[in-house]
């Protein structure tokens, strides 16, 4: 299942609706939704905040395979931005020393089995395989 979304925070509501359509199509229950919502939001908002030079909408492909759900986000005419290389946040630090940055990628790493980035011909593709089997 594939759908395109304007590169703006306001697209999050439509992405949530897309996830519900995907779950219904695949016969999956709402229990799978939270983790998928969270991973997609963190990936998408990274593209909105840090994607430089990118033009057009972001394509999101959701697929269900034998090992679970895979999500792929594709942006076009974009400078390279590899979210897999962002530093890990130290969640053991006292809160006074904590900074919010990096938490989103930490969630992605917690909730996915694989987290990959590919960049060629100015097209950036981030692919994740969700950790929980469905």
């Amino acid at each position, binding site marked *: 299942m594939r759908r395109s979304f304007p590169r703006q*925070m306001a697209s999050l509501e439509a992405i949530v609706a897309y996830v519900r359509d995907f779950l219904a199509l695949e016969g999956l229950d709402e229990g799978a939704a939270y983790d998928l919502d969270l991973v997609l939001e963190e990936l998408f908002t990274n593209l909105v905040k840090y994607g430089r030079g990118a033009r057009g909408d972001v394509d999101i492909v959701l697929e269900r395979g034998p090992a679970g759900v895979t999500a792929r986000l594709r942006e076009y005419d974009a400078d390279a931005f590899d979210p897999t290389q962002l530093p890990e946040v130290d*969640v053991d630090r006292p809160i006074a020393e904590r900074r919010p940055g990096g*938490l*989103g990628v930490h969630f992605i790493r917690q909730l996915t089995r694989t987290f990959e980035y590919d960049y060629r011909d100015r097209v950036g593709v981030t692919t994740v395989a969700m950790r929980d089997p469905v």
Partner: protein
Amino acid sequence: MFEIRVEDGGQVFVSGRFDAAESERALLILRSLSGPLVVDCTGLDYISSAGIAVLMDTFKRVTSGGHSLRLVNLTPRVKNVFTYAGLDKLLGIQ
């Protein structure tokens, strides 16, 4: 849809989806508050790193002023996200 309602005595009620599309509005509201705060999350269905960043900002600001901030009535799914973030023991969650 995200809603935030402030009542007398530092009671704050949040509900719906606290995501990156709503974080700026929530931050503006919470930064206007002072004194001890209790954030009731009974109706909160979802929170992402953007929502947590807002609550961290509020927690630091309130506690640096000598007051407390408590998060109460979190659903298990929402509490899980704080656990992933390593904040479940730190943010006054009850």
